[in-house]
């Protein structure tokens, strides 16, 4: 989008699907937003539109003006009166005031106020319209047609798009570019699968299952697949993978492999594919950790200029990389099963996340930057490796007492939802921390669970642009695991002065006094009586 805007006007594009799940650049093009802007414009120009239709029906200008006034000004007051008199409760005062308003409005449109005070039906309003119509030599049918269009206008403004009967199908059929998820675009009500697009670009294609890929690919004449097989793989239910492995005798790795990877590594893929090795997202120190741990050091790093001025950042993130190590907490830093799912949570890491956010929240220069900047929708991303941890943090945030400005600038999600997205600052909660692994150097290592696969960790670490704060265990990852490689690469950056390690235990103890330093001395609340 940014590159497109440099060259020409806004693209003819619509984004369909859930608005909450889409990136900020595309939000103005989301179907709900476009629909709302259509209706806002319609509302603002309603009088002109009715006048035009009135003229087409052969009504005179004065009659159109009076009827339009009745429809747009008198009728809403009548509606309110109907509601108030139908509702139980003492609304006599308000109803009387509205009757006075109606009498004034009748005077403005040059009719006598009808005697009736029965608001249970439209008779009062029909009397007003009849009085207006009597002044002109126009057939009642034409007036009725005009009023039908006025009603149509009201319905159009009040109409509700639903999944089955939506404005989306109209937008999808009239825009040059349609963006959405593979499955979302396949919804039959959108009718896109019947159309042939000249070009279909499938981003994050390495995450797609075969059936997901099939949906957009059947609609295009020319297909471009973009993806990274070293990042997240297609999602399959673990029990399904196990059943296939057992019954079909196919290796798990082969079941999990994406069709993108198969095509990319095929003879055809090698001939027509391209590998991009230069990354622009992460500052070099962060990029080097990712490159060393997951890409054999092959990546080069093209961006050295930070997106956030370092002077506005709190001292806790004075280096691009920070690891808040929970090793010293011992068992208190361990994961535990979530209460109502098979997921995991880690409370000490949640506390550390909150402590870091409080540091940002009490750092005045950062607040000033948040207020001024308009480049990032949510500059701070909190990434969790488990869904239950995400829910835990999401529930804690509103209750945390953090300022609304900081909260509104934070996004909390799981690694799986984060692929393809980025934040200027990323706080990563590893969650996984236990003593269930094998013994090494007389200490129990961490049993890594699904964190023994590098893809997920690669995604988690490579979302950060300027600052990456890792929260969790640092030293007890088993040799040969991806997290062990990350830890080793981090130590290299630490030695070079680009990273620092903080002790979560010491940080927690110091937290209250540190936070206190920023609490204004004056009495901020209602205080003592």
């Amino acid at each position, binding site marked *: 989008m940014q590159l497109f805007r440099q060259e020409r006007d806004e693209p003819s594009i619509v984004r369909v699907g859930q608005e909450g799940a889409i990136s900020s650049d595309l939000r103005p093009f989301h179907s709900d937003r476009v629909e709302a802007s259509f209706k806002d414009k319609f509302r603002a120009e309603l009088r002109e539109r009715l006048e035009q239709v009135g003229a087409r029906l052969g009504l005179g200008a004065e009659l159109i003006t009076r009827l339009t006034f009745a429809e747009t000004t008198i009728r809403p007051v009548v509606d309110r009166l109907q509601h108030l008199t139908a509702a139980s409760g003492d609304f006599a005062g308000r109803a009387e005031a509205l009757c006075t308003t109606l009498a004034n409005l009748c005077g403005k449109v040059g009719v006598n106020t009808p005697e009736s005070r029965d608001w249970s039906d439209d008779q009062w309003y029909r009397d007003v319209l009849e009085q207006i119509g009597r002044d002109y030599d126009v057939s009642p049918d034409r007036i009725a047609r005009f009023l039908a269009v006025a009603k149509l206008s009201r319905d159009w403004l009040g*109409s509700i798009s639903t999944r089955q009967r939506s404005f989306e199908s*109209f937008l999808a059929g009239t825009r040059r570019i349609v963006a959405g998820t593979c499955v979302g675009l396949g919804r039959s009500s959108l009718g896109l699968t019947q159309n042939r697009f000249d070009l279909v670009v499938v981003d994050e294609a390495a995450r797609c299952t075969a059936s997901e890929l099939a949906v957009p690919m059947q609609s295009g004449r020319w297909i471009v697949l973009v993806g990274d097989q070293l990042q997240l793989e297609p999602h399959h239910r673990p029990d399904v993978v196990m059943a296939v492995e057992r019954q079909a005798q196919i290796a798990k790795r082969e079941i999990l492999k994406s069709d993108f990877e198969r095509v990319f590594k095929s003879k055809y893929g090698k001939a027509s594919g391209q590998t991009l090795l230069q990354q622009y997202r992460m500052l070099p120190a962060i990029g080097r950790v990712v490159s060393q741990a997951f890409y054999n050091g092959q990546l080069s790093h093209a961006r050295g200029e930070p997106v956030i001025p370092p002077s506005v950042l709190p001292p806790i993130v004075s280096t691009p990389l920070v690891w808040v190590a929970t090793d010293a907490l011992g068992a208190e830093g361990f994961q535990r099963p979530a209460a109502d799912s098979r997921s995991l949570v880690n409370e000490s890491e949640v506390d550390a996340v909150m402590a870091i956010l409080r540091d940002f929240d009490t750092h005045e220069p950062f607040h000033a930057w948040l207020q001024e900047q308009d480049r990032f929708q949510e500059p701070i991303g909190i990434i969790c490796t488990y869904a239950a941890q995400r829910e835990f943090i999401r529930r804690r945030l509103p*209750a945390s007492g953090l300022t609304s400005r900081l909260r509104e600038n934070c996004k909390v999600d799981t690694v799986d939802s984060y692929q393809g997205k980025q934040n200027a600052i990323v706080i990563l909660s590893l969650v996984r921390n236990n003593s269930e692994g094998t013994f090494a150097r007389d200490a129990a290592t961490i049993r890594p669970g699904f964190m023994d696969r590098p893809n997920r960790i690669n995604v988690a670490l490579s979302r950060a642009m300027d600052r990456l704060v890792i929260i969790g265990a640092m030293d007890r990852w088993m040799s040969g695991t991806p997290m062990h490689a990350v830890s080793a690469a981090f130590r290299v950056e630490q030695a070079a002065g680009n990273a620092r390690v903080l002790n979560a235990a010491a940080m927690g103890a110091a937290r209250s006094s540190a936070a206190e330093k920023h*609490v204004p001395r004056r009495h901020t609340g209602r205080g003592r009586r």
Partner: protein
Amino acid sequence: MNGARARSGHEPARGDEEREIEIDVIDVLLPCRNFAITYKVADLGKVSLTSEFLMRLVHSVEGIPEGEAAAYFGFSDSEIAFVVSDLEALGYLERREGSLWLTLAGRELFKPGSDTPEIYEVERRSERHGFDLIALAPTEYSSLSPFDAALPELPSSPDRVANASHAVRMAFRRHFDSLVRRATNAPLKQSLYSVDSVTALNRYATPVPVRVRAKASLPGIVEPDLSEKWTRYDLDDRTDVVESAAAFLKACRITSGSYDDVAFQELARVAPDALADYYKDGAFRRGSFYREAIRRAGDLRADRPTILLVGTLFTDRNGGRLKRSIDYAVQRSEKSLAPLFFWHPPGVPSWGATRRLPLSLDAVRESVSSTESLRRVNSVGITHERPPRHLDKAFDSIAMSQARVLRLESLEVFLIPDRVAAVLVHVPATGSTESYPVPLGILSFDPDIVYRTTQLLSDLVLPLKVIRPALDVDEFEDAIKASLRT
């Protein structure tokens, strides 16, 4: 010292430093409003939204030029062409010399006298629904007692209130399933067709219990827990209410008072044995007291009449302890029961703003009266100035202190003469200069401590001026003298 530990102490509970503690429970009023909403539901059909409305326009303005129809809806040439093609494909519309006409099949969709096509059945409804004015989530009206009505209200943004009618359209749409479909068992194929009008009706408020919680290791950082009223899924729709409650708690923060040390001195004077470990060289060691109080897992027993408290007497744990202390005291006391019991609230803004205050007063009356008194025992709230409305509504009587002594704002005293006493000091959390008040103190049915508490209260508040007596004034003053005799 060991003796003191044995009398007031308990077994340490492992790992309690990291657990959550409940410091207070308050109730706040959530501002709400009823709205009359007129809406339509329709069975789902195959004609798209835009096609339906173009058909209606052409039905009313036959032969409208395609360009004028496009201008009416604000469509571009390609957009109107798309809609027209859709209707042409369905056989409902035709183009003739740049103008649009319904085909016979299209006209037959409109019944005589109707200006809407019979594509699907549309049903118009008018209903009343309540929404809160902070998150615009559905709420149900319930009547408030005079005490409830005096509770503090969560602030709502003036913009949100002013634009509520408009925003309620969106809220109604969002909550349509729970408000209408599930409530009426409407068929799944029926969906919301339009929200035609929204009229604001009466305002009301609904109480929301807020548990004030903190990590034991960080008591200065409190968070509101609203799970007593709403499930986690309901709370997902009400994050604005949670934020507002957090802001409310922030506004209740207090700073250290000049005479907090004196208040702790008085506390130590009341229970010198139980607090010997924490009061040394004229200074009260709040940190040690706090850590010990949250670490101990034991509770009141017949041979353990005094316990350390953290948090108000309205928390689940402390409320239960208060009840048990009364039960023990009633069983063992030989003295006749005084006709009054007293509560001297601390000078903190949120104190007693909970529906648990009247419930606690009822429970005390019931516990005492059912076992040993033939007549009603009345509660007296003792204040130093005119009390806030919620306290005025809670107590049977209100008496104002006329004492010309140092006023200890952080001190809370609860006293059932000759039976039970609680003394709490409301101060910012340990190590903080400002925080939500964290009460630290004792609860006891030890006759010596109850006696000294009576002395303390008498010293602090007598003479009293009766503001609102539960009994005849003379009788009330006699009752006070009898109750606070030491």
